[in-house]
């Protein structure tokens, strides 16, 4: 049962509270009810603690910027990955979101640079190549780059985006690779969905 959120006399009819609820509910994964809960939780806290949160958020706006090179968020520009001399500057891994970069970094297997698109091609959402900064990526490829790893999600849109980048960079003489797809480690073949299993079969590899 859903209850009306701002029925007269309810807490959220207080304008200041209502404002906070409205702002919080704009965040991903937070519905109006959760926003109300968070707001009430903040009201119950000690003033200093809430001030700490306000300060942290304030610093976020002023202190963190997307890297002009790759789009990664950092306090420094260029970001510490782009600025790191130890990293292989001839390999660029293209990802959809910042979260994907974090996931790949967690593997400690990759030592090249990144490029964050911030989305995928999707005409039904009005997203074309310009909106996800593909021209900017192509400009980066004019520098000596040996390989581009396309790590967009294995979805219809992620695949289309990968193909677009592949087509657009054909003339640049860069090696283009795509992340392999198949069975997750430690999983059961029995429970794999048909399309994943079919793909894993068709891209099977020789045991070395």
């Amino acid at each position: 049962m859903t209850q009306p959120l701002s029925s007269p006399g309810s807490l959220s009819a207080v304008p200041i509270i209502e404002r906070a609820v409205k702002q919080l509910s704009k965040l991903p994964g937070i519905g109006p009810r959760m926003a109300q809960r968070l707001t009430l939780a903040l009201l119950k806290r000690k003033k200093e603690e809430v001030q700490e949160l306000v300060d942290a958020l304030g610093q976020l706006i002023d202190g963190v910027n997307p890297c002009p090179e790759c789009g990664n968020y950092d306090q420094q520009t260029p970001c510490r990955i782009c600025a790191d001399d130890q990293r292989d500057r001839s390999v660029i891994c293209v990802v959809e979101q910042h979260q994907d970069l974090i996931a790949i970094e967690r593997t400690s297997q990759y030592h090249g640079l990144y490029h964050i698109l911030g989305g995928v091609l999707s005409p039904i959402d009005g997203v074309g190549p310009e909106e996800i900064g593909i021209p900017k990526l192509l400009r980066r490829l004019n520098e000596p780059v040996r390989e581009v790893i396309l790590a967009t999600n294995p979805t219809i849109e992620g695949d289309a985006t990968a193909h677009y980048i592949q087509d657009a960079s054909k003339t640049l003489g860069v090696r283009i690779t795509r992340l392999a797809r198949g069975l997750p480690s430690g999983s059961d073949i029995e429970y794999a969905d048909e399309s994943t299993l079919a793909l894993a079969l068709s891209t099977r590899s020789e045991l070395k």
Partner: protein
Amino acid sequence: MRLASLLIRHFRLIGEASLELGSGMQLFLGLNAQGKTSLIEAIVFLSTSTSHRTHKEEELIQWGEETAYLRGRVERLDGEETLACGLEKKRKSIKADDVALPRVGDLYGRLRTVLFAPEDMAVAAGGPAERRRYVDMAIAQIDPSYIGLLQQYRRLVKQRNQLLKRMQLRSDNSAQKELAVWDAPFLDAAAKVTERRGRYVRALAPLVTEYYGRLADDGPCVIHYPAAEPETAEDIRARLAERLERSRGTEAERGNTLIGPHRDDMPCTLAGKSLAQFGSQGQRRAAALSLRLAEARAARDAVGETPLLLIDDVVYEMDNTRRARFWDSVDRTGQLIVTAADLGHLGARIEPAQIFEVNHGSIHPAAS
């Protein structure tokens, strides 16, 4: 395959009904607007989580109620399972043995049904969309992975159409380049859907002809799928690619994808003539029944188990000869759910295994 028990709550005309169903013919007798078709629709919904009568699922909830609920115990060759569907105004949940099924497609194949309904006339002799739906639903029940393929294809068509619409306003080199990346996956998915449908229609076609021949003497009745005439997915893809190239101009003009399985037809002909254009009422009805009889046999051939047959009020419009021929053609080795207004409508020699009475939205075994 058997639906051993069925619980219905607040679904269409039925307030509450709890039924134990046996093998063989389960006959539901009742006057019009008492809930016979509601019962059939409930079983269809438990089988496919869609209704054959409406796209608006809130219409399925009994008037004045908030939720509808269906639960059925299914006995298959590979074991027993309890399926449950809960339906709210904006939400539905589907469970198998109390485990929620995340995707609609996960329900398919658990309770395979073949529905004979008065609306079937449109399948044999209506527009192409009716036949596409008929073939797609039939394949989905014997091959649930087809649903994922179909959804993927529809999404690609949607993406492509949106891009084509944008290109109507502004078509430059970069837009062409962008279209190119959707063409390849579109053609791949289109070829796969066409190939799967083609394989199904090829298995179905001789059965349709055979069953029509059993029901009437003015055949042959033939269904065919021209788009799948090249048999392999590669050949189909090559032909689709050619047709796509030829349609580029019109496509850009109209801002729509004009070729592919979402536009195809599987026309039915009778003695070489289009059934949709030239078929009489009786011929269309016989063709519709032949399609369903063939669907049931094709399902049995594919999965080795007779599907549940739902026969909703289709026999009473037939004359005695046709009716007798129909019952002779129906596979009565499995379970049949049959509705009629009157026992006499079924015709002679038909002995139901169990009779229920449907009255004002409640269903009870008939007093013997």
